[in-house]
């Protein structure tokens, strides 16, 4: 370690003001502070001691909370692959297929995103923000396993440049960066991100007899036109090649086709527990998203005129990306509501809109992405009302 420290100390003056590579100071700083936490001390006036937390640790905590989803997702990619081609395979084989498919997506996401971050930090002379550590992991987890790597790269670049840097960098963006990437793919390449992409199937591979790549959301949407019961459709799906693929247990544990990290409600709940226990994510938002979705589901049950509306409300909590969105996307501190009261409203509305969009919008089966992006835009308005209420309380007090 001493050697590394000495090397850094020797190199440092080149990057400081007046040095040869002055321009690249923030790039150097980002790398240096990753190896060693800085030796700066508190100023002479003000607090003399500081809390041990820093942004790197906070962001790392979120990444740790995502690892159950990631590991399960890697396994599930392989598992679904072998299910679809009708082959028996061992645990290690499934993981291996998953790693081969997922790792390149992660590398591309981090490579492209961090590359852009470093370029912008050098051009605009601001520190490299740790926020991308989380975004860079979120993007792969919301991608279909079969996605071409160039699309990952383009989506990441779009999200970071247009979604974030155009607004002034980390902390200034209005919309969640990872969801911006996903939305970009959806609107730019609609044919490639729907249909048969949710299971990894290399070209030329024969699928098992009776195979279908339909997702629970698609099945539920289809049942509106067919007039069939959603739950029985889900239960009978996969018969012959993957019995009970969409049983409620499977939907909850996430052993089904879908985005890499989104399928498992169980893993998301483990992540939610980590975020809650470490205080890294707002439990108020997570709880209220689920509450909003469930409440809307119940309301639709009551007013049901088609099979999708009749689908039991708790199914809404386990199909699609609701859990993942609630736990990891909606809680993004930059784009969520910032007041404590506002967080309840914000989360509840996301849950509500998710179900609304799912049930009533035939064009796009997955509601959570659009619901979160929509509420990202409305979050400042929610805060505005909460802050105004605080101001009014203060004014009222004066007249008493």
């Amino acid at each position: 370690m001493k050697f590394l420290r000495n090397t850094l100390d020797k190199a440092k003056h080149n990057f400081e003001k007046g040095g040869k590579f002055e321009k690249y100071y923030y790039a150097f700083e980002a790398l240096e502070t990753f190896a060693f936490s800085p030796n700066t001390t508190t100023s002479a006036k003000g607090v003399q001691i500081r809390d041990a937390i820093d942004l790197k640790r906070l962001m790392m905590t979120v990444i740790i909370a995502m690892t159950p989803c990631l590991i399960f997702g890697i396994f599930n990619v392989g598992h679904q692959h072998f299910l679809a081609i009708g082959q028996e395979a061992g645990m290690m084989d499934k993981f291996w297929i998953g790693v081969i498919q997922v790792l390149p997506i992660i590398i591309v996401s981090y490579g492209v995103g961090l590359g852009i971050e470093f370029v912008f930090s050098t051009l605009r002379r601001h520190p490299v923000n740790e926020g991308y550590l989380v975004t860079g992991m979120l993007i792969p987890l919301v991608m279909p396993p079969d996605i071409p790597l160039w699309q990952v790269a383009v989506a990441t670049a779009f999200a970071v440049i247009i979604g974030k840097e155009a607004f002034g960098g980390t902390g200034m963006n209005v919309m969640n960066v990872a969801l911006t990437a996903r939305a970009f793919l959806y609107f730019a390449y609609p044919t490639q991100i729907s249909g048969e992409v949710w299971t990894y199937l290399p070209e030329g591979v024969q699928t098992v007899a009776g195979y279908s790549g339909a997702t629970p959301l698609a099945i539920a949407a289809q049942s509106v036109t067919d007039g069939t019961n959603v739950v029985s459709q889900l239960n009978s799906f996969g018969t012959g090649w993957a019995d009970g693929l969409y049983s409620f247990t499977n939907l909850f544990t996430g052993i089904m086709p879908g985005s890499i990290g989104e399928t498992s409600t169980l893993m998301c709940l483990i992540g939610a527990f980590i975020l809650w226990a470490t205080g890294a994510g707002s439990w108020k938002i997570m709880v209220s998203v689920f509450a909003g979705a469930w409440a809307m589901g119940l309301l639709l049950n009551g007013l049901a005129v088609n099979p999708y509306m009749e689908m039991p409300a708790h199914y809404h909590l386990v199909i699609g990306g609701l859990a993942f969105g609630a736990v990891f996307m909606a809680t993004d501190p930059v784009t969520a509501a910032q007041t404590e009261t506002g967080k309840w409203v914000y989360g509840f509305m996301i849950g509500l809109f998710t179900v609304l969009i799912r049930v009533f919008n035939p064009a796009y089966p997955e509601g959570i992405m659009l619901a979160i992006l929509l509420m990202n835009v409305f979050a400042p308005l929610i805060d505005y009302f909460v802050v105004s209420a605080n101001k009014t309380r203060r004014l009222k007090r004066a007249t008493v």
Partner: protein
Amino acid sequence: MGKFIRLKKGFDINLAGKAALKLSNTEQPETFVIKPDDFHGIYMPKVLVKEGDSVKAGSPLFHDKKNEKIVFTAPVSGEVVEVKRGEKRKLLEIKILADKTIESLPFTKYSVSELANLNREKIQEQLLTSGVWINLIQRPYGIVANPEETPKSIFVSAFDSHPLAPDYSFIYKGQENYFQAGIDALKKLSGGPVHVNVHSEREISPVFAQVKNAELNKFSGPHPSGCAGVQIHHIDPINKGDVVWTINPAGVIQIGKLFLNGAVDASKIVAVAGSEVSDPQYYKTYTGASVKKFLANNLKNDHVRVISGNVLTGTSIGKEGHMGFFDQMITVIPEGDHHEFLGWITPTTQKVSFQRSWGLFSFLTRSKEAVIDSNMHGEPRAFVQSGVFEQVVPMDILPTHLLKAIIAEDYDDMEALGIYEVIEEDLALCEFVDVSKHNVQSIVREGIDLLANA
């Protein structure tokens, strides 16, 4: 009857090196200073003494050019040895080499019953000419109280909730009569009640418990329950146009002594505490004392930070510095200017954190006394709304929004979001817990200065 206010939000930092309840008999420090920077709202100090002048306790050293009535006087008798100025001849400090026995200028002496019949003008005049007046701080803004104004109430916080804070029942022991006389005098200055606030779970000194002529309120909960701003917010909140004064018990006692003894007596008992002090204990001295003698042969190692005041609101003054006017303690902690390999992720129970992020296990050992150095533990970053500010401010104030309004210099918003109710110390915990390492207290002061000079 006083009120009972239960506070939940906040954080007690359990630091190592608490001062033992004993008084050292080390000899008095040689020099004492008074620094204009310890006070806010002084327009321009006009120095009234030269180097070499001899002064008594209560002799004027300088006054404010804008308000000449507000006089800053010597805490001890002796010789003015230095009038230290900085850039643009800004007055930094006036240093006095103290006599062996401290003498005060004579002021009018009153008995308790005479004091009861004294009118507001007489009290005010004696406080101003003796320089004892400057103990009174005005809210909003945290500036030296303006004698032209009548506050709607006066607040005395009778406990200190800061880390390692001195034990008030020890340092004010036996001062009942002076404290009561001080309260009686303050009652005449206040347009409303005088509030004396104690902590319900701590030993309440008879000095405060038996106080008459004032409201005795009880608070419970962690720091910042002892900050006057928090107490005012819950008992008699400041709205636009309101004026409230605050004063610490040491100031009240000094007022009492001024009237009962007819003398300026700036003596006080201070705590010398912190993990790097070999023998943390109390010392009897005067306002503005040099810390040199307290620390001689009393430090565990050489690489330390000496703080006048506590670790949240104090000032680093060095091993030969002088204490600030209002400070009642010296804290010595290790200097933290070292790199740490992978320090941002290594799991530890040693580093204290209000938060429970990955690897920060100090929340499991909260009852253990911790050694904390002056390291920043991270780099400055953009604001992240992680919701922690809100957990350490026990007031109906939105700290993040207030801070952002200040940074944006939005006067209307600052006012509406409650800037009149806070000074630096009330939000000091935000600065401690901040993930993005902002200097919250200096931001608060910038905002206050903007409004005060508007």
